């Protein structure tokens, strides 16, 4: 049994991800629509289930039973293969991520982060091939934009990741988080400029607004997805949102302390442990309060069920915190549960916050034009990230020389970050000056 475990455990986890992820993605979409509605002074989905809670399921069913159309002039094989490639790459990247210290499919890959970044970048093949195979101009242009965008921004993202890896000294996902626990500080605080560059680059990589040019609705109809419909389209959709989760997870792991609680090594801040159960309990109470206001009986029951679910989760989250207080003798036994359950909560919480930021930007900012996007990438982000890596590297040498670690490492990295920031502002000012000089001329080259 023990011998077989290395085979069946990843298989079960993998199946769980493949089975559950579409559902999660569906609910991410619902949450996005609700956030969008909130920002735009409207309600969003309200019809299917209370507050539209069953909308993702209705959407999924609709997509599955839609007619499957392959255009006559499309390259059938590639058309068939492309969305599968995209979604396959995205799901495979999930395998390298650790949601908690215990939950990881591909346990202890020594090139963890590199594997995740590499595999998720493979998804671009699906987009390029899909855009090409559709035999439509919009699709082709979307695909071209997407590939150019990925190439430009992957560089900046990679450089930003290098900063984090410099602190961690390892590529292994679990060890990176452990390194942050040992340092007692998140790497995102040590290298805020790297976190910022990664944030911008990851938005561009996942084709989200304001960098959603490959699928810019008002320009290219739907970009590379224009000719796809029904299930194939939903595969692309799944891939896009999975990629979002992947980049958010990478950022969380490397910069935001993974599954660690904020200030995990500071004893007197242990009360933060009460935050997860309290949050879920408050959501449960809110659902309970809204129950009598639901118009239909079945909706009231559903709302009660949601409230019950929230309370159950709250109870589970509360148990590792409350049990040691009630019975100190059980403290040791509860310890591993704490790491697993609260680790999972914090990881998901941070990933959600990161994705919320994506959504917030999407509903606030207009879209970049293609040449502006390229200029931002090549003239600003890439130089900034390279300079930042150099400065952080120097700061690390200084840190090692003076035996700085933990919060004291900030003494070395903070000046480095500030210098990088000043250089960034300088680059921006230079760029703007250049822009002002040639402002009345024609628009610059698209693929320069």
């Amino acid at each position, binding site marked *: 049994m023990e011998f077989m475990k290395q085979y069946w455990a990843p298989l079960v986890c993998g199946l769980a991800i493949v089975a559950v992820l579409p559902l999660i993605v569906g609910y991410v979409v619902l949450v996005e629509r609700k956030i969008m509605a909130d920002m735009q002074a409207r309600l969003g989905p309200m019809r299917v289930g209370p507050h539209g809670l069953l909308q993702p399921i209705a959407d999924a069913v609709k997509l599955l039973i839609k007619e499957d159309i392959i255009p006559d002039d499309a390259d059938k094989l590639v058309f068939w293969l492309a969305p599968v490639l995209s979604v396959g790459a995205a799901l495979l990247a999930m395998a390298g991520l650790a949601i908690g210290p215990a939950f990881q499919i591909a346990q202890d890959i020594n090139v963890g982060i590199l594997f995740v970044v590499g595999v998720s970048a493979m998804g671009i093949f699906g987009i390029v091939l899909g855009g090409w195979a559709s035999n439509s101009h919009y699709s082709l242009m979307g695909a071209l934009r997407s590939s150019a965008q990925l190439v430009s921004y992957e560089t900046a993202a990679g450089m930003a990741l290098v900063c984090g890896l410099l602190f961690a000294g390892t590529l292994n996902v679990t060890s990176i988080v452990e390194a942050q626990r040992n340092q007692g500080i998140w790497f995102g605080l040590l290298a805020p400029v790297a976190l910022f560059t990664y944030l911008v680059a990851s938005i561009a990589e996942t084709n989200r607004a304001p960098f959603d040019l490959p699928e810019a609705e*008002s320009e290219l109809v739907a970009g590379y997805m224009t000719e796809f419909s029904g299930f194939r389209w939903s595969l692309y959709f799944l891939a896009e949102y999975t990629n979002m989760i992947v980049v958010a997870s990478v950022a969380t792991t490397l910069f935001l302390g993974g599954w660690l609680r904020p200030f995990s090594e500071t004893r007197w801040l242990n009360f933060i442990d009460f935050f997860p159960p309290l949050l879920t309990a408050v959501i449960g109470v809110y659902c309970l309060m809204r129950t009598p206001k639901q118009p239909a009986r079945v909706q009231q029951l559903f709302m009660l069920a949601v409230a019950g679910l929230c309370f159950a989760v709250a109870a589970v989250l509360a148990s590792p915190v409350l049990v040691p207080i009630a019975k100190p003798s059980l403290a040791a036994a509860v310890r591993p549960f704490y790491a697993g359950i609260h680790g999972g909560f914090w990881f998901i919480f941070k990933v959600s916050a990161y994705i919320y930021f994506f959504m917030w930007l999407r509903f606030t900012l207009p879209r970049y034009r293609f040449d502006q996007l390229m200029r931002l990438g090549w003239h600003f982000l890439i130089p900034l990230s390279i300079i930042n890596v150099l400065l952080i590297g120097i700061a690390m040498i200084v840190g090692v020389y003076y035996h700085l670690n933990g919060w004291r490492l900030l003494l070395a990295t903070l000046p480095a970050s500030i210098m990088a920031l000043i250089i960034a502002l300088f680059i921006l000012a230079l760029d703007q000056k250049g822009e002002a000089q040639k402002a009345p001329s024609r628009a610059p080259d698209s693929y320069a």
Partner: protein
Amino acid sequence: MASNTIAGTGEKQQTLLGADELILNMGPQHPSTHGVLRVKLKLDGERVIGSECLIGYLHRGVEKIAENRTYQQFAPYVDRMDYVAAVSNGLGYCEAVEKLLMVEAPPRARVIRTILTELQRIASHLLWLGTHALDIGALTPLFYCFREREEILKIFEKYCGARLTTHAFRIGGLQYEAHDTLEKDVERFCKAFEPRIKDYEDLLTQNRIWLGRTKGVGILQAADAIALGATGPVLRASGVKWDIRKAMPYAAYDQYKFEIPVGATGDTYDRYMVRMEEMRQSRLICLQAIENIPAGPIMAKVGKVLKPPPGEVYHSIEAPKGELGYYVISDGTVQPYRVRIRPPSFVNLQSFDHMVKGHLVADVVAIIGTLDIVLGEVDR
């Protein structure tokens, strides 16, 4: 180097790497051609080297219909041209026929007409702002704009029962007396509207991406604008201070104080700023107008059957999109001999090719948006 000839101009254009140019058919079903405009784009990579607008997908023969209807019967049809500014269309037609009949609407009717027309201008500009921002990728302003537009449509609904194709005015004046709360409703809207414009400006005016997408895009020099016959905000953004409300006052515009905003460079950003300022000015006109609505009749003395003396008349008004002109010929019967309509959208669209050359595909949608065309009016 491959060289190709642009249709119509005979001008030789060369692509960047000698590659074949790409012909992209944008529309008539495309999210941002504002209806059924079809644009054929000749592209080098993503750069536009030539364009051709194909129109007529919404042609309903409005001008021909006019010849088979009486003067009153034709009035509702004009609402369907620029269907987001139906009140303005109706005003232009009614005043043209009044000119032909040599009657004048009573003062009370003229003031109420002015109020409703200015509200319509705000509504039309709001719709423009929302869709223009949406074309450039900002999703949220659309919903804020619709929220405010809804308030205006509610006022219309209270006044005449319809929201979109209102048929608010009649030849000779108004059919309906203003409802009791008209002044209060308009005042409440105007009070609430001031901070709302600031909200939109907060979202867009200083936004780096917005500036990048609109500054220097689709420049129309003043001389070109005049030569191409552009009117309305498109002309004014190029720096020409021409507004029919001031130049040839109609309705009750000569009684109110307002500014004509003009731009400097004639790019998309200037057109944006001009329209934003126009909304503020329209709000001021409304506030001035509700202060003193004269009492009296709302309908001039016109007969049940309108038989204008033989003759012809051209009357134009400043519609939200530009100069909206009606050229009406009467042969002395109850039906007009000919009604020729000068739609601002159609004429402004002619500068599209001039503005779009050398820009990228993304700018094409920005330029379509900034021209503020309504295809119902382009095709008629």
